[in-house]
């Protein structure tokens, strides 16, 4: 892998003094920051040679002074072995010796399910078309089937980790991303529940909420079920309030939300339920609670006899052993009836239906590769970033005007003026854009 080879010759090793930027950085044009997490930062960059877009995930050194982040190691080692259309592709690993950080370079995906769902909910106010929902779900299951047959559990499936490719030859193809919590479950040396709580609570399977120890790939299918419902209704199916603080606390509210929709679980339907610690202890008296009959079909507005509902309910089966596997789900009738799922999930199938232009990821152009925010953002970069992000929304004369202003370089006055102007124009456009702009303006004024 890139830097990894050939280092014995001494080329890689000599790189990167404290003040020098590593040589590998020169192969990219940095566009800006596109994300942030506990592990570190995500950047958008273009390769200078092919001009292809790359997402670069920077992992900070682990905080406890214990070397390279185990999360990064987990993600790298799994992705080095995995290769599938519906799994994100790790194209390179780079090292910045200056701060002992690792940079993972991935093929860039413009969209993700979180943003697609949000766009429909907040901007378009209409549901996602059936073909798109089915294609997204099929590809997600296809990728998951590959992972599971390679004995990998993802453990953190949620809409923001399900990526969808933008323009290009892979347009509309789903990529499962973020393997920082993934585990090989072939022969765990320790019970899987040992390394802390996993899976964002809304998508967490009931056996995990009840503190099952030896959970299986079925936890991923539960999450897919939740995501399926969210694609249909545009809102999270089980939106419990997370109890924070102590390690692995009992998430009563989340269970309550699930029970309200799916009914109370019974040892009758789920025999191993009685062995799960939180059910056994019954500290919150969850065993005695009364819930109305299951009403999942009302929540997702599906006829109880439809194939879509049948598939959903089988992925949200309480007993993990009865829950569908990814392979079984792919064989389900739902995927055999019209509209059939396709490779490009974002195209329209109905004549006359409008193509939806999902917004591109916002790019924060004021952060550099090391993750430090620059004090003097280059104005043309700011404008180009904004324009690139929203060029479809901006009226043409405005577009031109900004390019002109932007191109005059960092003349302080021009800069401030143009940012103010930009702000005024944008106020008439989209709220979100204004927020973005205010941030830019704020940064700029601080620096001047």
């Amino acid at each position, binding site marked *: 892998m890139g830097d990894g080879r050939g280092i014995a010759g001494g080329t890689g090793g000599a790189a990167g003094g404290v003040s020098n930027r590593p040589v590998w950085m020169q192969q990219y044009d940095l566009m800006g920051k596109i994300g942030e997490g506990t592990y570190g930062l995500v950047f958008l960059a273009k390769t200078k040679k092919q001009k292809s877009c790359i997402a670069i995930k920077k992992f900070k050194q682990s905080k406890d002074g214990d070397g*390279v982040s185990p999360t990064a190691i987990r993600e790298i080692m799994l992705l080095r072995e995995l290769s599938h259309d519906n799994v994100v592709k790790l194209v390179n690993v780079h090292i910045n010796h200056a701060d002992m950080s690792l940079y993972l370079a991935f093929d860039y995906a413009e969209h993700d399910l979180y943003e697609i769902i949000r766009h429909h909910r907040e901007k378009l106010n209409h549901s996602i078309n059936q073909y798109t929902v089915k294609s997204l779900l099929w590809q997600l299951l296809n990728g998951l089937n590959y992972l599971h047959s390679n004995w990998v559990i993802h453990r953190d499936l949620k809409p923001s980790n399900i990526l969808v490719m933008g323009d290009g030859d892979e347009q509309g193809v789903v990529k499962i991303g973020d393997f920082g919590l993934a585990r090989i479950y072939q022969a765990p040396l320790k019970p899987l529940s040992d390394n802390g709580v996993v899976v964002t609570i809304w998508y967490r399977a009931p056996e995990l909420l009840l503190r099952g120890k030896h959970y299986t790939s079925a936890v991923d299918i539960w999450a897919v079920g939740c995501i399926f419902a969210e694609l249909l209704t545009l809102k999270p199916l089980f939106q419990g309030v997370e109890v924070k603080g102590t390690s692995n606390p009992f998430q009563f509210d989340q269970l309550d939300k699930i029970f309200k929709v799916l009914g109370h679980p019974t040892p009758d339907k789920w025999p191993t339920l009685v062995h799960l610690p939180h059910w056994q202890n019954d500290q919150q008296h969850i065993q005695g609670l009364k819930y109305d009959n299951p009403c999942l079909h009302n929540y997702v507005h599906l006829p109880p006899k439809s194939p879509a509902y049948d598939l959903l309910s089988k992925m949200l089966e309480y007993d993990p052993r009865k829950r569908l596997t990814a392979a079984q789900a792919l064989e389900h009738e739902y995927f055999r009836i019209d509209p059939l799922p396709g490779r490009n999930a974002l195209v329209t199938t109905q004549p006359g239906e409008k193509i939806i232009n999902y917004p591109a990821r916002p790019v924060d152009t004021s952060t550099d590769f090391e993750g430090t925010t620059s004090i003097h953002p280059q104005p043309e970069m700011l404008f180009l970033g904004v324009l690139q992000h929203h060029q479809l929304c901006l009226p043409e004369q405005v577009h031109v005007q900004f390019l002109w202003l932007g191109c005059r370089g960092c003349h302080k006055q021009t800069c401030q003026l143009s940012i103010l102007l930009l702000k005024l124009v944008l106020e008439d456009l989209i709220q979100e854009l204004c927020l973005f702009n205010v941030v830019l303006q704020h940064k700029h004024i601080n620096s001047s």
Partner: protein
Amino acid sequence: MADFRTSTHRSKWILTPRDLLEKREAANWRARKMLEDLGLTRLDVDIDGSISYPEPLQDSKAERHSIKALNCEEEQLLRVFYEQKIQEVCGAFKFPHKIQGTAIIYFKRFYLQWSVMEHHPKHIMLTCVYASCKVEENHVSAEELGKGIQQDHQMILNNEMVVLQSLGFDLIVYAPYRSIEGFIDDMEGFTEARDSVQTKLKELQVAAKFEVDRAMLTDAPLLFPPGQLALAALRRSNEILKVINFERYLERITSAERNSQNASQLVESLNAIDLLVDKLSIPTAKDMRHIDRKLRSCLDPSSQEESKKREKKSKHKSKRALSEMQEDHIEG
């Protein structure tokens, strides 16, 4: 990852004897050259994980020539010595058996790119154990590991990046231990499951595990897939324990095998592994004393001068230094 067939282990790290020879000669040659040009071979790994080359020593050329570089055979002996140490350290920490297997494979792969004269194998061995623990989800802090064997843990952290990088970040490796389990399971079906046979199969499994531990110290893990290492170990153990008809068993698995490998090819591989195991010589303390002195003088000639003086003063002290080197790692 269950699928060895699509793994980086299979595609990139099963090599030919010729590959091994070339890579090792290249690394040895580079270190020799450095000794000639600069007077020492040690590469410093800084706190940030970057590597720096030594400044040339000011000594006269003639003096430098008095320092002899290790040859390839001596490097080999040193590696075997420290690979065995990996097994001891992991045993002392009571790590799951897989940890030492993974660490040894990392160590072997690392020294396909570097000479022991460039990176001291004691440091690399501990870093490989540390990395193996991280990858196999058996996390031990560098501090704990260092403390257990009375070594500076910062050295482990300093070397972590260069080890990961030299491994090309191919971190999932297949040790033969699981394959043994798999074959034993399969043999249970092969020999109609009578209780007496069951017990004997368990004995066979234990014996084969020891055989694999020995094979891990040879070049075999860089030349053969883990399944063949496991089979060779089972065959060796079966020759003594005589649990099953091994020839018939091999016929059966080759006829069921998808990848069209025929029985004679498989037997050829197993014989080659046996040969490597038979040839394995684990260096004695005496062998090591000589090589270790040479290594120290290559890594840092100035310390050698001092140690020579010390040696003259008290002979038992230098003996102590050697036994320290051997025993330090197994305490804890």
